[in-house]
């Protein structure tokens, strides 16, 4: 019986590479990983956006309407719907002059209860320290 924590740290911008999308889809895969594990073993993901990566969290993305591709917004809401812990770096939010109201903080519209939180980088650093493995995207 063990839990291993994996930190998915996103520093890439959206829509330039597949990186931020794959960070979220891989983090969500923690929901089905038990088919490979022994009873009671778990993988606990935490997702954190830092640097230019916080631009993934902007609201009102319409990649589906414009290009027929699921938006990063949709993936982020799916992550919150599945109760993943999502952190957004406060220093970078401030650097870009963004406010909570311009960011994807919840998935209420699809029935989600978990919220994203804007935290100082020091909290992201703490998550990194308590994680077993770190995956930078």
């Amino acid at each position, binding site marked *: 019986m063990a839990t291993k924590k994996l930190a998915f740290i996103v520093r890439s*911008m*959206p*829509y*330039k590479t597949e990186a931020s999308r794959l960070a979220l889809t891989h983090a969500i895969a923690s929901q089905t990983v038990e088919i490979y594990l022994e009873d009671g073993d778990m993988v606990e993901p935490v997702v954190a956006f830092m640097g*230019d990566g916080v*631009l993934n969290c*902007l*609201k*009102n*993305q*319409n*990649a589906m*309407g*414009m*290009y027929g591709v699921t*938006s990063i*917004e949709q993936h982020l809401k799916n992550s919150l719907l599945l109760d993943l812990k999502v952190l957004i770096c406060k220093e970078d939010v401030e*650097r*870009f*002059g963004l406010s909570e109201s311009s960011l994807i903080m919840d998935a209420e519209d699809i029935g989600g209860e978990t919220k994203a939180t804007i935290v100082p980088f020091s909290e992201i650093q703490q998550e990194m320290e308590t994680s077993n493995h770190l995956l930078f995207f």
Partner: protein
Amino acid sequence: MRLGVLVSDFRNVDDTLSRLKADKLGLILVGNGVYLAAVKESGKPSQVLGMSPDIYALTEDLQTRGFSDADVDKRVKTITYDGLVDLIFNDYEKVIWI
């Protein structure tokens, strides 16, 4: 030379842009280049926006990334793909993508 530059990235474009000379230089922000039009860093808009009087941003790429016309710097004209095709054929002799 009338040169249209499609700027497709948010980082690492300033050095190239600052060197290019043209009788008429158009900067057309596409892909992640549209962040240059809609995002400030530490309160300052991108210096790219001061590099030409003719700056455009692609509406479809703004909307993909969560921006509306209201988010765009006043110096930037928004255009659609339709307008982009006209710019390429009518306003510039040569076009590049960086």
